[in-house]
């Protein structure tokens, strides 16, 4: 098995809320998983489950409150200035809303120029142009149509692909794709999805953050199901989707609308708590119930016993 590109170890994020920051909100709680090269991990969870916060913490846009995030053997949670800049040479992100990711007062291709200013100030005009064209070709964009345009003159799909092209200008090993296709319509969705699959073929580690189960299933090798900041189930996508164990995962899968069948509100019986079958006395947050298949305690909320 290839070594992990990124490893999260018991990462938590606390936000201060309320007047004078007196209350604490635990947005992410003891999350551990890893991403390997050439692998897509989909991070699935409902709104507010902390999935975007995890993506932002991996990219160091938000500081983690505790735990470590290791990239190629170095902890990135403490990186500053120069070291952080070098980290971004190898790890990049693409965000949900392509329209707010571009500075509206500048032309869209400025996002490419910024990469040049920061990382390739010595590359000549001609050589840079060639690199830009190569990167645009890789994401199926026609340079004629996207360069020298303002963000509001381009479609969401074009902007999103331009952002991926931007990441490709750097020699990245990790791409965090945060809800990249939720703002796109069905016809451009599949382009971007296939593009992510191409990146995976190139050996990139891709963290695919989504709330859409079918999209997560389409692309991912590994699946992480997040609920209220904690992982409830994770493992190989085939295992998680083929044999969902945790009651939350089951409810989530059952709530996907299907063509031809009416949705019913049947109670699902998850059976006895699989976590406590492995760790009767408690232990790590997740229990390995099968090969590459981990599950948390079945207890869904305080005051309700598992099983």
């Amino acid at each position, binding site marked *: 098995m290839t070594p992990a590109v990124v490893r999260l170890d018991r990462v938590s994020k606390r936000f201060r809320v309320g007047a004078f920051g007196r209350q604490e909100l635990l947005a992410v709680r003891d999350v551990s998983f890893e991403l390997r090269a050439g692998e897509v991990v989909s991070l699935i969870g409902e709104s507010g489950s902390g999935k975007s916060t995890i993506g932002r913490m991996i990219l160091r846009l938000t500081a983690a409150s505790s735990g470590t995030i290791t990239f190629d053997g170095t902890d990135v949670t403490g990186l500053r200035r120069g070291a952080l800049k070098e980290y971004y040479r190898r790890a990049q992100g693409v965000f949900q809303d392509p329209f707010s*990711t571009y500075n509206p007062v500048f032309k869209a291709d400025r996002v490419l120029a910024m990469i040049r200013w920061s990382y390739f100030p010595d590359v000549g005009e001609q050589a840079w142009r060639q690199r830009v064209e190569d990167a645009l070709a890789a994401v199926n964009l026609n340079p004629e149509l996207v360069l020298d345009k303002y963000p509001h003159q381009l479609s969401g799909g074009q902007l999103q692909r331009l952002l991926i092209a931007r990441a490709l200008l750097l020699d990245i090993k990790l791409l965090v794709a945060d809800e990249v296709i939720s703002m796109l319509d069905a016809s451009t969705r599949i382009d971007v999805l296939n593009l992510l699959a191409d990146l995976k073929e190139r050996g990139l580690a891709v963290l695919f953050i989504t709330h859409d189960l079918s999209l997560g299933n389409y692309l991912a090798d590994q699946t992480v199901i997040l609920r209220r900041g904690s992982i409830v189930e994770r493992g190989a996508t085939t295992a998680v989707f083929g044999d969902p164990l945790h009651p939350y995962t089951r409810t989530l899968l059952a709530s996907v609308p299907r063509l031809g069948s009416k949705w019913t509100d049947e109670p699902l019986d998850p059976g006895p708590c699989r976590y406590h079958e492995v760790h009767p006395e408690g232990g790590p947050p997740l229990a390995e119930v099968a090969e590459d298949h981990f599950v948390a305690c079945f207890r869904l909320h305080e005051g309700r016993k598992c099983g």
Partner: protein
Amino acid sequence: MTAPEPVSGESGPEVAAVPGVATVRGTGVRREALYFAVRNRKLVGGLAVVVVFLLAGLVGPLLVGDPLAYVGPPAAAPSGEYPLGTTTFGQDVLAQLLHGLRATFLVGTVAALIAGVIGMLVGFTGGYRGGLVDEVLNMITNIVLVLPVLAVLMIIAAYLQVRDVLVQAVIIGLFSWPWVARAIRAQTFSLRAREFVDLARLSGMPVRRIVFREIAPNMASYLFMVFILLFGGSVLFAATLDFIGLGPTDGISLGLMLNHAKQWSAMNLGMWWWFVPPGLAITAIVGAMYVMNVGLDEVFNPKLRET
């Protein structure tokens, strides 16, 4: 170079065409701003008015005599010899106006620069950094905001026996920045949370560059308006100080002219040539700058451009 051709949005089939938005092909953002700036009637017209007054204030005093000398017949209406007439004491109103314009531009510019720079530094730092830094800066801002400026100025006036226009400008500048800081801080707070700031961070841009190259351009027209408001406010504030006897002890300003005219009942005596020119000059300068601001908004914001 050849004149760039304005190309409207719909040049390709794939472009999400936004009708009526003009761009300039193949040019940098600065050259493009210039392209639209010289074609904007509001901006050019406003600038013309300001430049005419500025030139009058710069060159005029060299052509006329001492503004405070008693040269002509008292209270004479405009004539060939004294184009704007004389005051009750026989001082040349034109000479006073030209010297007054110079003093007014000096007070307005110096005070606006001082207040603008302090306000921007405090606002950007507090808004971008947040946390404790922001708390401290915000506290200082609030303290200065509620200082009874007039009382403080009286104390300062008691210590400074000789005050010239420049001292007045510095004092005004040091007391008029808080609202700038508060407004910029609030704007920076909102812009900092946008994803294009995250993208700039992911591009390895240092904080200062993010603030001045990503956030500030989004309020460029606002920042310019800040200078206009500060300029106008300083001119009016200077007139107030002149009125209560805290103005410059030597020299003349438009505010002093208005004050003298009022004190010697020019209005009741029908000596319109004494108070109309300075009043008109202040109104024209500040008004022209407001018109310029509207024009600049169109130049900076591509969505407001007319084709």
